[in-house]
């Protein structure tokens, strides 16, 4: 700060500056706004920080996640295929995470199934049918949907969807389908806005050619625009699915968190994320249950990497 004060006074600045710091010293290079290296350092360090963060998270989760197999000698295969999750049982505790992996997958795919038709429909409406209205009204509505915190979705699910399920399908109302509906609504705006972007990116010449050979609006959208936007639309859906896969809070409130394998979509279930958030605080660092929860997190990370690989694969195919 002392140096900063010196620089404020232009009369003494040049004289004392050469005394205090070397003109081409590190400090000058980092503070002069015309300096080339200052921008370089700022931008490079942001990029490096990003890489460090991703590597650190991956490494940390890997080390923690492998503890239950290396230190506690759980069998990896029985861990991911076992269906009995009784970590607190005094005799013969068992760690079978398959119901959670299945639950996560089921919620994700059901949510995509619910969200995709509505999201693509909205995207077509915004990008093809009502372009002006779409950007003026629909865009803000979608942004609001994105901005609603997941706990609010959970609360609405708990107060509306769960009682609805209970009245119409019996049981307690907490079930897989309720979780999928809540998450489906949550990923709707993500899928819709990316899908709208990819539809807008389809060159107008394609549409004009279609109209020129006498196609109707609907024929143009269905036969020309959607196939042309094809893989981008799939990317939008996969991105939505990866978001659905990681959602914990809202799902936890409506899915019931039962550790047994569901027999139908009207049975309560649990996902990887809900079991982690439910139990983590109650476990002590280094206990087997704690390690097993880290392993669940590790599996979560691996599966989200798979989603990213799929997205990369799809976008590369599009660019080629």
């Amino acid at each position: 700060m002392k140096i900063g004060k010196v620089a404020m006074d232009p009369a003494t600045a040049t004289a004392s500056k050469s005394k205090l710091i070397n003109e081409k010293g590190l400090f000058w290079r980092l503070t002069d706004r015309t300096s080339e290296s200052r921008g370089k350092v700022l931008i490079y360090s942001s990029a490096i920080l990003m890489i460090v963060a991703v590597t650190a998270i991956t490494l940390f989760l890997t080390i923690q996640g492998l503890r239950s197999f290396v230190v506690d000698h759980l069998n990896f295969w029985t861990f991911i295929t076992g269906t009995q999750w009784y970590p607190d049982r005094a005799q013969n505790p068992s760690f079978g995470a398959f119901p959670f992996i299945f639950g996560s997958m089921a919620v994700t795919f059901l949510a995509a199934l619910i969200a995709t038709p509505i999201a693509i429909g909205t995207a077509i409406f915004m990008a093809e049918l009502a372009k002006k209205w779409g950007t003026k009204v629909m865009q803000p509505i979608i942004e609001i949907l994105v901005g609603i915190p997941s706990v609010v979705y959970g609360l609405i699910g708990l107060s509306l969807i769960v009682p609805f399920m209970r009245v119409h399908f019996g049981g307690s109302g907490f079930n897989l389908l309720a979780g999928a509906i809540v998450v489906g609504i949550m990923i709707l705006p993500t899928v819709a806005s990316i899908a709208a972007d990819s539809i807008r990116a389809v060159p107008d010449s394609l549409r004009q050619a279609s109209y020129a050979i006498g196609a109707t609006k609907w024929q143009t959208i269905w036969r020309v625009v959607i196939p042309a936007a094809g893989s981008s639309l799939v990317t939008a859906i996969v991105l939505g699915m990866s978001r659905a896969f990681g959602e914990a809070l809202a799902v936890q409130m409506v899915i019931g968190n039962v550790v047994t394998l569901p027999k139908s979509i009207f049975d309560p279930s649990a996902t990887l994320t809900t079991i982690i958030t439910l139990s983590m605080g109650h476990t002590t660092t280094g206990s087997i249950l704690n390690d097993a929860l880290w392993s669940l997190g590790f599996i979560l990370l691996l599966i989200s990497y798979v989603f990213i690989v799929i997205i990369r694969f799809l976008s590369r195919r599009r660019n080629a």
Partner: protein
Amino acid sequence: MKKKNLLAIGLALVLSLTLILSACGNGSSSGSSDSSSSSKSDSSSSTEALSGKITIGGSTALQPLAAQAAKEFMDKNPNVQIEVQGGGSGTGLSEAQAGNFDIGMSDVFAESKSNIDAKALKDYQVAVVGMTAAVNPKAGVKNLSKKDLQAVFTGKVKNWKEVGGKDLKITLVNRPDGSGTRATFDQFALDNKTPAEGITQDSTNTVKKIISETPGAIGYMALSYFTANDSSVVKLSIDGVEANDDNVASGKFPVWAYEHMYTKGEPSKLVKAFLDFIMSDAVQTKDVPAQGYLSVNDMKVQRDATGKQSDK
């Protein structure tokens, strides 16, 4: 322009420095808290003024009481800063053992967690919490024998009419593995029988909401969550004994647990002063009942870590 830039960078540097320093300060707060009482002493108070920082964390069941006591303690000792966090009993015990929390709050004895060295931790039992089963009013049950209660929770009985209620399916609402409430209920209400699988929720408020809205649901929660003129859930009596503070204090009602505060070894002077404050009448006769707990001083029975009950 130049002036502004330099200022901005200077500010950013100072900011990041403070961040780093405060982060370091957090880690070592347990060590520094006792040594820092040298600051200017309050001339009006006759006793030596306390100063420093205490970090408390763990059980969310004990968090409201700790927060209330911390607020009052800080009002009396303006140089003391107390931070009360949640995180769960397991976190409280782990972090107290690691030295990151000055006080770790827990609903369960440290002895019950396999990888916590209970001997290294000093146990302060600051309050008692009673628990009982909460039943949806439509089930038509107000009292169950312990045997019937166990039959309900282990899944042997699936319909309320089998235990004297209405013809309604039973829906269980459990707590997650490792939860203090679940451990207490399993041990003292179910006599260590493993409950059948049911809906699992962590937060007591969510559990209460589910039980009140789902016909035939049964779960369990702390007595403080049953309010006098609230008929959304039924407070279940066990073996004809009503679940209230008097019956818990006299030992007639079995389902209760201590709320613990653990320190790693002997507490520092500041931490000790705070623990003494919590055990003082000011907190034990006012805040403890106000927050729905029982004072340890009112208990006519006591328990050890294995759950053995004896007269005090």
